[in-house]
């Protein structure tokens, strides 16, 4: 079985400061990893994904994430946040062994960007 833990439920950060959102996963097989963003009262939007290859993945809106197999982590970072980055962020995992391409989500991290 696969699982995802997002270590911070809320992260307050000042505008133009860097932010890191932590994600750890558990799985017995090779994984595919995703970060999604949910703006208030909206659905989820894909930020970035790791399928294979380079462990540093760049996504939309200046976000990037690094896959670390030995630490089973996939942390999300942005060097300088904007007010518009206020949202909830979800880490998710799946694998070839997951029937139906099922994604397992973490509990989410709320990012509040302060002026």
């Amino acid at each position, binding site marked *: 079985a696969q699982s995802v833990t997002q270590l911070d439920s809320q992260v307050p950060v000042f505008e133009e400061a860097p932010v890191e959102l932590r994600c750890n996963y558990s799985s017995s097989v090779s994984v595919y990893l995703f970060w999604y963003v949910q703006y208030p009262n909206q659905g989820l939007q894909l930020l970035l*994904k790791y399928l294979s290859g380079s462990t540093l993945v760049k996504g939309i809106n200046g976000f990037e994430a690094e896959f670390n197999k030995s630490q089973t982590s996939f942390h999300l970072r942005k060097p300088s946040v904007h007010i518009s980055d206020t949202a909830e962020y979800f880490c998710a995992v799946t694998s070839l062994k997951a029937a139906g391409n099922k994604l397992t*989500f973490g509990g989410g991290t709320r990012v509040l960007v302060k002026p």
Partner: protein
Amino acid sequence: DAGITQSPRHKVTETGTPVTLRCHQTENHRYMYWYRQDPGHGLRLIHYSYGVKDTDKGEVSDGYSVSRSKTEDFLLTLESATSSQTSVYFCAISPSQGDRPLDGYTFGSGTRLTVV
């Protein structure tokens, strides 16, 4: 997202009544999913479909049933709504590319369901 729509967007219903939520896609994707979102729990899978009339349970399927009679439509039914089913429900779709989730999911805008 233009390729996936959920209806209704909001619904208030009484305990014990049946409720059906609809997910419609125009992408011709093989996989469709129903998730519920609750604070602190992220998104949890209720049911999913891997083809017409092919469905399977997720981790929180009790009290829910689904049907998929056409590729484009995936219905979620709460057979007898309870207050614990008050939640935001999201539908998602995923293409099949050799069974690899290369593009992740595309999500609908959600249905906010309140059971009173």
